[in-house]
């Protein structure tokens, strides 16, 4: 089954983080990427640029609305995602617990709706 892992954390936390912790954090992500790629669980994943770069769009009654910023201002922001292939939710949960930001932020796991082929 495919799951999307949405990683939420306080993006401003880096501003006051000890540079060594910064290095450790990204080193841990690198290790996670390599491990899950090797096991075949990782389908794709990306870090996202901060919410200051976000643009939110909607159309109501044919009227287009564009706002500068994420759709909601929250204390923790979506900072990245992984799309993984796992046999069960428990396996996905095991992976999520290895994502570095899980220690200070949160990871939302959502099963992907898979359309039947053919």
């Amino acid at each position, binding site marked *: 089954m495919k799951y999307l892992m949405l990683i939420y954390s306080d*993006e*401003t936390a*880096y*501003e*006051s*983080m000890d*540079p*060594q912790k*910064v*290095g*450790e*954090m*990204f*080193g841990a*992500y*690198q290790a996670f990427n390599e491990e899950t790629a090797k096991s075949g669980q990782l389908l794709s994943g990306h*870090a*996202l*640029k*901060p919410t200051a770069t976000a643009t939110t769009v909607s159309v109501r009654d044919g009227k287009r609305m564009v706002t500068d*910023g994420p759709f909601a*201002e929250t204390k923790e922001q979506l*900072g*990245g995602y992984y799309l993984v292939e796992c046999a069960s939710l428990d396996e996905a949960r095991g992976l999520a617990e290895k994502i570095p930001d899980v220690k200070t932020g949160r990871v939302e796991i959502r099963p992907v709706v898979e359309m039947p082929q053919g």
Partner: protein
Amino acid sequence: MEPGTASEERVDRLLLATYREHAGRIIGSLVRSFGDLELAEEALHDACAAALRSWNPSHPPANAAAWLHRVARNRSIDTVRKRQRGREKLPLVAVEAALHPHSYPDEHALETIPDERLRMMFACCHPALSMQARVPLMLKYVSGLSTPEIAAGLMAPEATIAQRLVRAKKKIKASGIGFGVPDSRDVHVRLEDVQVVIYLIFNQGYFSDSGEDLVRTDLCTDALLLAEALVQLLAREKLISELPESLGLLALLLLTHARLPARLSSESFVPLEHQDRAAWNREEIKKGTELLDQAMKLRRPGPYQIQAAIAALHGEAASYEETDWEQIALLYGKLAKIAPSAAVAVNRAFAQSMVHGPSAALAKLDDETSPEAISDYLPYHVGRADLLRRLGREEEAAGHLDAAIKLATNRSIIDFLRKERASLD
């Protein structure tokens, strides 16, 4: 308040300390919101004047930095509105911010000043600006130094620095140098420009160019703070591929800074060979080495990481003789491939001489350096003199030391070189 009273002094001190620590952030935040450096600078200046008038020495503001930021921000909005009415030309950003002053998600955000120093760093080190302007710009608008402080640090007349700043600000405004993070195609090269300036600031502090002081430690500290902020802000922007070299730069500065306490002994310069290693700052060596390890795990090697590795090898050696010169020579070899320079050639030859003896090293040095590159290069003459001395070619060595003495501008270094020269007679 009466002038010169203890109360006034207390407010002065608080303002000065707050400015030094937070001016970079405040200006960065204002520049982000209003797109105009001159506007930001004047607004902060006005806020400081207001602070001197209104801060109560017995009940100063709980968050002095936020106070300055808020007042400067309001001042900026007022100025923009006035100019709007007078139809002065303004960057669109400024107009937008003035018309919609609550561009922050919530009021509490004003208590923490948003950190936009990365954008300021890119702007201050923009390739369109002269190299001479970039260091003063960084020190003024990111590090928060005053013009006299910058002039003292760079050992230049205050009027010269002031002029460079004025010209640079004019250029920024007139040529439309923006305050943004460059896009992915350019960000690596632009970051190199920023890293070089931070490195130059550190060198200004560590290798004093002229005059009496061999070491001006405040500039070294400013460079370390800049290098640290760079890492934090790159992490925030998720510029992950750029982290390793910036971690490498910070590691290099820390590892070099660690040796500072041993570099001067009662005002005389002490070369690495004779430094009292017990005086080295072990905490900084440990921190620098750990940062380098983190950088290398990210598997994107680069010149700053290599230089940091060399500094780490010096840092962990119990003595000059026990230093892993072979590994250092190898690392300089790697550096020579990706970032060759006269400095690299000289240092590499020197390291090789410690492993294979001065003769081979001398031959290699002559192979790898061109006369134009090294004729005015002080370390070349010092290095070559040393190799020649070890080969017993003392007259030639003396010639190079004479050349070195002519090139040197720092009193402590000149004294040291004269002693070396005298020992050959």
